[in-house]
């Protein structure tokens, strides 16, 4: 294992501290229990809280700020955060309109947020994201996994919440965006959980894992490396099979890197995916390319398609000011 580490046990706290210092104009960090909140507490809105295992940065800490989340709870690497973190974060950001948890669909995350919700005294609701079409069931899930599409849910609901919309309305939009969003990923290499010290899975120099999860969980199949256009065709095909968009549908196309693949290749993937989607009659009017939902140092990428309508597009376009997404202000 070759990583920048002092002591494995200190990695998370040191990384969070660095993140909070680098973005001190946007976030504040609380350690033990670990959570991040906006530098300036918002008022008169539903408090949006997300969280999950670390190792997927900038998800979710990088999306705390005006126009997106009010708080994020980072767990240990690839391990769900715990209810005490969520309760403390909720107490810090709740401002009278209730708390909405946005949770990726993994058994651990769902159970920990569920226990926190049972202990919360304020009004609360939960949106569970499940955009990964690769597999119905995976290492940690009951049902589809929540992956990069979660960023779109957090952005769109984040914008709606800023308008003062109530809890039920925020939850309903989050669930609608989740239903209209589908993703699938592919890995070229494994990743190494720092505390484990060795790669999570073995993969040959000329192999890829089609449909991989963001923790290096297995996907649909192991196969031989092929040209990028062929790989993209498989990903796009699986996504369209799931979403079944009507011809002429308007969509946001996201190409997400797992962190070990250069931007140069991500744009190549975007080029291939957009071309293919245009041929299938999909009108791509919004895009997002970069490392937004990563998997430690894994090489690979995922493609996400979100079917837009006027409301979703308007909230996507609305101003956002976070460490990882900033526009319109």
């Amino acid at each position, binding site marked *: 294992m070759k990583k920048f580490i002092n002591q494995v046990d200190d990695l998370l706290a040191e990384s969070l501290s660095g993140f909070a210092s680098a973005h001190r104009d946007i976030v504040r960090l609380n350690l033990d*229990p670990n959570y991040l909140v906006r530098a300036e507490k918002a008022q008169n809105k539903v408090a949006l809280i997300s969280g999950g*295992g670390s190792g997927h940065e900038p998800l979710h800490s990088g999306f705390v700020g005006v126009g997106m989340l009010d708080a994020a709870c980072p*767990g*240990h*690497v*690839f*391990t*769900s*955060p*715990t*209810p*005490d*973190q969520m309760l403390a974060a909720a107490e810090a950001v709740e401002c009278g309109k209730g708390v909405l948890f946005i949770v990726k669909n*993994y*058994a*651990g995350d769902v*159970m*920990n947020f*569920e*226990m926190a919700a049972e202990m919360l005294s304020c009004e609360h609701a939960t949106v569970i994201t499940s955009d990964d079409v690769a*597999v*119905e*069931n*995976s*290492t*940690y*899930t*009951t049902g589809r996994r929540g992956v990069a599409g979660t960023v779109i849910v957090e952005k769109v609901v984040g914008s709606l919440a800023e308008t003062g919309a109530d809890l039920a309305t925020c939850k309903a939009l989050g669930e609608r965006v989740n239903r209209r969003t589908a993703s699938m990923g592919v890995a070229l290499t494994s990743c190494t*959980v720092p*505390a*484990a010290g*060795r790669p*999570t899975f073995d993969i040959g120099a000329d192999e890829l894992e089609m449909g991989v999860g963001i*923790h*290096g*969980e*297995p996907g649909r199949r192991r196969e031989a490396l092929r040209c990028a256009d062929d790989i993209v065709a498989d990903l796009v095909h699986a996504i369209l099979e799931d979403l079944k968009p009507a011809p002429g549908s308007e969509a946001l196309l996201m190409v997400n890197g797992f962190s070990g693949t250069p931007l140069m290749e991500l744009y190549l993937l975007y080029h291939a995916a957009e071309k293919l989607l245009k041929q299938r009659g999909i009108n791509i009017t919004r895009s997002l390319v970069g490392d937004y939902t990563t998997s430690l140092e894994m090489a690979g990428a995922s493609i996400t398609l979100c079917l837009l309508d006027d409301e979703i597009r308007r909230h996507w376009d609305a101003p956002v000011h976070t460490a990882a997404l900033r526009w319109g202000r």
Partner: protein
Amino acid sequence: MNTDFILQAAEAVNAAILAHEPEIESLDRAIGDGDHFINMKRGCATVAAMRAELAELSPDAALQKVGMKLLSTIGGASGPLIGSFFIAMGKAGKEAETLPQIAAAFAAGVEAIKLRGKADVGEKTMLDVLIPVAQTFTRLANEGCARDELLRTIKREAEQGVLATRDMIATKGRAAFLGERAVGHIDPGAKSSQVIICAVCDLALV
């Protein structure tokens, strides 16, 4: 139940989990993602370090305190499941003195895992050890089985439960998607549960 036994059990469990590191790690790498042992180790070390604060408590309060602590230290899927077990066992174990009462408290803990995880026996999880153990524990205790005989039978039940997961197709928990690919592998969560149960039984048998 007495608090002193709970403290000794915490140390015995911590030692047993550490002693089984290679085995649990390799099982988890095969059909999980390799973090199960790290999480169990963190949980066991935390409880072993609670000696002073637990010593003052009644056994049921100590179990509940352990549950709350595990809930905030393990994380992942194991945290809520194992935390719920101890909280529920503590609640059900108020003034539990006799073997049937302790068995009922243990069974209440296992029931809490079933409810939280929405899982049951036969799904290739820790419940394939815990449910048969709870049933056997309750039955033997109510039949008035001798203590040492009961403990030895529970150990055998736990070992059989682990082996049974080898041929199961997972429908819940970490190995669920692997489907056929997980057949032939023992479930790491079932293994760590068996290690813990055997460590506690061995302590009681001495």
